[in-house]
């Protein structure tokens, strides 16, 4: 009947939120889903007559699942209450450091290779370790 069709719409929407929030801590995701589910049920009960359009409107007003999850993920702690950075931020920071160190090591390796290559090339050429660029005899 229409009731279960509306239920289907709601479950689909909540499933989308669950999917978007797969990387959230399970407790936070569970709480969010419970809050959203309650909102929907209360809003539906408030409707004088429940139609599909009304149910869709409730879900539309709640908004895009990815935006809601983004808020749960990226929102910092309320002002004046201690550190707000979540795990995501420190994870990015770690990767930046790894990248810089890797690039740095590559630069050093590159320089070494260049120097060594130059030395072996000059050795190969003349048989002497390093040819003197200056005239040797006067």
């Amino acid at each position: 009947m229409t009731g279960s069709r509306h239920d289907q719409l709601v479950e689909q929407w909540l499933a989308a939120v669950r999917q978007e929030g797969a990387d959230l801590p399970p407790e936070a995701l569970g709480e969010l889903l419970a809050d959203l589910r309650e909102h929907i049920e209360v809003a539906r009960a408030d409707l004088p007559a429940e139609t599909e359009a009304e149910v869709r409107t409730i879900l539309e007003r709640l908004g895009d699942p990815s935006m809601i999850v983004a808020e749960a993920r990226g929102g910092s702690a309320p002002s004046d209450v201690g550190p707000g950075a979540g795990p995501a931020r420190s994870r990015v920071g770690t990767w930046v450091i790894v990248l810089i160190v890797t690039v740095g090591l590559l630069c050093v390796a590159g320089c070494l290779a260049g120097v060594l290559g130059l030395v072996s090339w000059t050795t190969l050429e003349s048989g002497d370790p390093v040819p003197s660029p200056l005239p040797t005899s006067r």
Partner: protein
Amino acid sequence: MAEQLGVASSLRRGTLEFCVLALLRDRSRYGVELVRELGTAQALTTTEGTLYPLLSRLRRVGWVATSWQESPAGPPRRYYTLTRDGRAALDHFRTEWAAFRDAVDRIVETERS
């Protein structure tokens, strides 16, 4: 347009939670009620759903407490109540906000068109 959205979103962050606390000053409210009242202020919210993570954070830091109440006709509702810490945080914000708002208005010359 994207620039304007960015400004609005930056302003919201840091003030919206105090608007929520202010709505709870005189009495407890349930989720849908809170969300709808904030929703009427267009400048304040993106979508209703984004308020639930915010409410979660307020709960976590102890500025808001929740309780379930049976409803005569319909599902039980979760009511949000301002805690003493929440009330203190709100009072602090109101002082800070007034000074901040006045300073910005003055510098940006909001009155002058």
